[in-house]
Each structure stands twice: as structure tokens, then as C-alpha cells.
């Protein structure tokens, strides 16, 4: 197909939203080191339900190799993972399960919604599909695409890394965070 231009270079991008740094954020060197460590050791929990999970396989595989970021130790026990990667359609039946897994993760935890379905329901605007997982759990990064290319998944992953890097040690104890949790009915 002949295209007038090949690339859209007016990509929108906003920085890390307010509130991630936590109140009274003061980056001591120590905190910086911890953040750096966390950033480089994000163990994902692939909550892969459908097609996007297949692209995630490609992300894990040789060509893209998520391991480069120190994240090949995927775990399936929520206790041990830092990043909940929700990939694929989450139906209403699956919603509680997702929430349970999220709730059982150990702090600090992050969530990335990969793909149209997880982010917003995608084409499945139907009675049985949750219109975005942010209806049940807070999401830190959204990755659009159906499925997102592995590049896009890596891109989202790096966004998470930035977020992790920016986050102070205290955010998880802050009132703001508690409020966020409460808004999802998570104690």
C-alpha cells in the first residue's frame, strides 16, 4: 500500500503522573539505589489469557528477550512477583480472579495492561467482557495494540521501569496510595 508518510512522529506522551513519587519525596542516595535495584529486577507475573499472551511469548523469546531487562524469571505465584502483566481479554468471570491475584501480590507491585482487551475491552464490547481491567485493579501502564508488537510491550515495560525508578520507598505507605486502594475496595 502506498502511504503518504510512513511514520507518525507526533506521538503523544505525557510524563509520569503526579503522585507516584509519594509525599515528601526526597531522593536520598539510598532510596535511589533501591529504586535502581527494583527497576532492574522486575519479575513479571504473566496473567496471560489469550492472544496477547502469545505475543508475550515472542517477547520472552530470543528475538526480543525480555531477559535483557532482568525479567526472565517469570513466576506464577503472586507472592514472588513485582509486575502483574495482564495480557488478554478479562471477562467478568475472570475479574474476581484477577483481583484476587493482584491483592495477594506482595508490595511493591505494579500492573501493566497489555493489549486493547486488558486496557479497555478492545473490540469485545460485550456483556461478558470487562471493559478494561482498571475497573477492578489500578493500572500503572497501558499498552495499546491488539496485540501490541513485542516492541510495544517492551516499550510499556520500560515505562514501568521508569515508574519504578521514580517511585520512592514511601509511596506504598502514603495516604494517597491507601486512597487509591480504597477506591478499588482493596483494604
Amino acid at each position, binding site marked *: *500500500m502506498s502511504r503518504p508518510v510512513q511514520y507518525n512522529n507526533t506521538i503523544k506522551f505525557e510524563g509520569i503522573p503526579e503522585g507516584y513519587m509519594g509525599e515528601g519525596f526526597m531522593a536520598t542516595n539510598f532510596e535511589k539505589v533501591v529504586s535502581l535495584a527494583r527497576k532492574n529486577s522486575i519479575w513479571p507475573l504473566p*496473567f*496471560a*489469557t*489469550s*492472544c496477547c*499472551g*502469545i*505475543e508475550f*511469548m*515472542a517477547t520472552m*523469546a*530470543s*528475538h526480543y528477550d525480555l531477559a535483557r531487562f532482568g525479567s526472565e524469571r517469570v513466576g*506464577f505465584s503472586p507472592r514472588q512477583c513485582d509486575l502483574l502483566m495482564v495480557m*488478554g*481479554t*478479562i*471477562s467478568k*468471570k*475472570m475479574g474476581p*480472579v484477577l483481583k484476587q*491475584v493482584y491483592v495477594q501480590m506482595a508490595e511493591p507491585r505494579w500492573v501493566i495492561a497489555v493489549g486493547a482487551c486488558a486496557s479497555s475491552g478492545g*473490540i*469485545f464490547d*460485550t*456483556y*461478558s*467482557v470487562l471493559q478494561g481491567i482498571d475497573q477492578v485493579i489500578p493500572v500503572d501502564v497501558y499498552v495499546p495494540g*491488539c*496485540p501490541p*508488537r513485542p516492541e510495544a510491550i517492551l516499550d510499556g515495560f520500560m515505562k514501568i521501569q521508569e515508574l519504578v525508578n521514580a517511585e520512592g520507598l514511601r509511596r506504598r505507605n502514603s495516604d494517597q496510595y491507601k486512597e487509591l486502594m480504597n477506591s478499588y475496595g482493596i483494604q
Partner: protein
Amino acid sequence: MNDHILLPEGSIEKQTTTLNLGPTHPATHGVFQNILELDGERIMKATSTVGYIHRAFEKIAERRALYQITPLTDRLNYCSTPINNMGWHLTCEKLLGVATPKRVDYLRVIIMELARISDHLICNSIVGVDSGAYSGFLYVMQFRELIYEIYEEVCGSRLTTNIGRIGGFERNFTNAAFEKLEKFLDDKTGYPAQLKEFENLFTRNRIFMERTIGCGPISGERAMNYGFTGPNLRAAGIDYDVRVHSPYSSYDDFEFTVPVGTTGDCYDRFLVRNEEMWQSLDIIKQAYQKVQEFKGAEAEVFHADVPAFYLPEKKDVYTKMEALIYHFKIIMGETEMPAGEVYNAVEGANGELGYYLISDGGRTPYRLHFRRPCFIYYQAYPELIKGGMLSDAVITMSSLNLIAGELDA
């Protein structure tokens, strides 16, 4: 003694543990829940629950014009999307009475067989992963990546291809696509060499054989009664294959065999899939040869000449009124659809993928039903794993190649 205690009848019960395998268990590769009754590691009873990613395809399809349903079919068996797309186009073509040129058929065959390979290679390597050997998976995944590149070259997307249109393809194959195909087929550096290596890693490894032989077996009769189709049925010894029984897309022009197993256990399923990949490679080679035979203007044919259903070329749309009208009609879904019922099946990677389309002549299908092979054979899973061990259940699950998207629709 007077306080002699009488044991109540049947107090010696078999102690079982109830274990939830799924919905977020790594072995389920998707979302199934199996409630297992375990005696130690042995499975005494299993109950499956499905529907964790039910997405209401059939209801959506009732609100969409034919061409808008193609993206939906992508998401059925997402390991081999093009087969679903092609199956859908074939169904529409059957309903609308569109005949496709030979070259289109052959190109379709190439794409479909590539899809079959990409599906089987995932399935087989996942069996490897689930039995603990991870490397083989990554080796073959590199070639799935190559298959994806071919798709991307043809349709612009890797996984959810939305490839092809009613009557043909949306664009002709580029040279880059053919080059990549050649690279894929190369005996030395391409997929055949890799497949050989993969076989060497697994097929005659005693640990692997012991893990899979006798694991989740099913007899031919049972399999038939359970509605098995595809490789899983053939592993049980019945050589039913839609490509042979009711050839579509010129499958009858190709030489290939239907591999069958005997016992229907995981090892048979593994071998059958493996052999099918070889057959697919063979078919692709033949088809590629045939495609190359088209020269000149013939080599430019990539769709049937059906202006009522196939979108006119863009430059005509911008300039010609007639083309613009067709364009509008097709996009709005106002093509003349005959009323009627049609059932069409293709050999999906998992078995007979059927489309039952009822049209009342309106813009959208009156009802569209997908016969999803996974959904039907998954009900045999509890029976397959009963009496096996927990590890067997995991391997059986992956060797059945359950695709949640297809299963739950």
C-alpha cells in the same frame, strides 16, 4: 469391656485432596479451571470449568457486516489466525457464490499451512516446556518469528492478521514475502533443519518418551464419540482430515499424507503434529512451486473479479463513480446477501473449524456459529487425565493444544 467402641461403617475413607488447577495456573496456558481430586499425586476425579474468557463472538457477529467479522475470527485460535480468516472467507464465498482463481487458492494454501506450522510448533514445544525442557521452545520460536514476518509482509500484522478478503487477498504478495518464504523453506538454514533438530531433542529422548507415552490416551471410538477432530483425533488412529475429505482451496492439487497414531496418547499427539509439520512444509513447497509457475499478468492475480464483494482499487475509488458506489455499498455492508444457510469447514490447526452461517439477506449474518474444535474435545479432558498423575495432567493439557480463545469463543 463395656466401652468397646464400634467403628462406624465406612469410616476408612480414601483421603483425597481437592486442588484447583487453574484459572491462573501456569499449566493452563490460558484460563481453564480444573478441580482435581488427588490421592497423593494421582488424579481420582477431575471437573473442568471453562468460560473464563468468554467474549460473545457469536453475538458480536450478529451486529457486524461480513468483512468486519474477519478480525473476530482472528481471535478464535490465535495461534493460527490465518486459517480462521481463510475459513471465514471461504464460508462467505460459498454463501455468495464467489469462485476464486487458482493462484489465490495456492497463496491461501501457503498461508494456511504456514499457520498450521506455527500452531503445531507452539503446541509441541510447549509440551517440551511443560515437561521441563525450555530450550527447544525458544529454538522453534525463532522460526515462528519468521512466519510472523511473512504474515506481516502480506497483511501488515503479526498475530491478528485479518488476512485476505472475500474473494482473495487485500494485496499481492511482495517479493520480500516470497524471499522470506524461501528462507523459511531452506533445507539447511530454514525451518526443516530446525525441525530436525527439535526432533533430535525430543522424540527419542527416553525421559521425554516416558513422560508422554501412555499419558492421556484415548481410543479412536472414544475420540470420535467425544467429537475429536484434527491432530488429536488422528493421534487416536482415525485419519479424518477435512483437507482430504472435502478439499477446499485446491487442496486436492497437492500430494500429502495424513499421519495417524495408534493409542492417542501424548506421544502420539506429539508425533502426529510433528509429522504434520513435515507434511505442511511439503505442501508449502508444492504450492510455492505452483505459484511461481504463474507468469506475467497471471502473476498479478490476487483476488477474484467480483466487484460486488471485493473492494475496488483505491485509485478507482477516487476517480470513478461506479467504483465509489461499490465501495460505499461494501463498506456499509449493503451487498446483496442471499438468504440461506451454509455450513463450511476447514481443517484448522486443532481440527474441523466449522462456520455455520445463517443469512436472512440483511446486512449482517442472522446467526453465525463457530464450531470450535477445542471446545468440543476439551470435554474429554477429565476422562483423559483420570488415573494419571498431576504431571500427566499438565502434559496432556498442553499436548491437546487447548486454545482458550477458541474454546470460550
